[in-house]
């Protein structure tokens, strides 16, 4: 399945894009997506353990299963305020 992934802040800068498309095996989890993403963009690796995943604008646990129509976003440590 093909997933659109939004990227923000330091994750966006390390990847060089605010959105990308990933080809994943059907039923892939949020964690699997993140591992494939970090393998494709090695500059993300130092950030890996600090990244959270949001699906449809909610944080999800690593074992959350993604679907093609999901709005998926990579959330680095936030610093608003």
């Amino acid at each position: 399945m093909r997933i659109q992934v939004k990227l923000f802040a330091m994750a966006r800068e390390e990847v060089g894009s605010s959105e990308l498309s990933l080809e994943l095996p059907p039923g892939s989890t949020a964690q699997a997506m993140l591992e494939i993403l970090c393998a494709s963009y090695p500059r993300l690796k130092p950030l890996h353990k600090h990244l959270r995943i949001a699906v449809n604008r909610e944080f999800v646990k690593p074992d959350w299963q993604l679907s093609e129509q999901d709005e998926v976003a990579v959330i680095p440590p936030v610093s608003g305020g």
Partner: protein
Amino acid sequence: MIAIVPDPINVLQVVESVIDPAAGAIDIFIGTSRNISHGKKVLYLEYEAYLPMATEFLDRIAATASERWGTRKISIVHRTGRVGLGESSVVVAVSAAHRREAFEACRYIIDTLKEDVPIWKKEHFEDGEVWAGREGSTITPE
């Protein structure tokens, strides 16, 4: 008034938005950009937000605070883009019948905002720039 805006925040307008005839107390928090961070001179800040998710989260934080403390009105306005020194990056205003509720709800909102809402701050220095909270740099308590 819950908003994430690219323009300077009108503090007075935010305060006026929570005025309520049944409120005896208003507490307001303003986050401003400091001129020094990590011992270095700051030139300006830059904020980025995941707009729809951040807005939904702010709505939810306000609803939780309103329910938990029985407040009257709540406004949260956060700025994005370039923010100059001394300018406001965020304004939280809470009106309530009594001051305890106003203070506690306002403190809860800004604490939760800094913890969970997908907004990011980049500090621009004379010799470079750094995302606050980025691995290797200290996460600032503000």
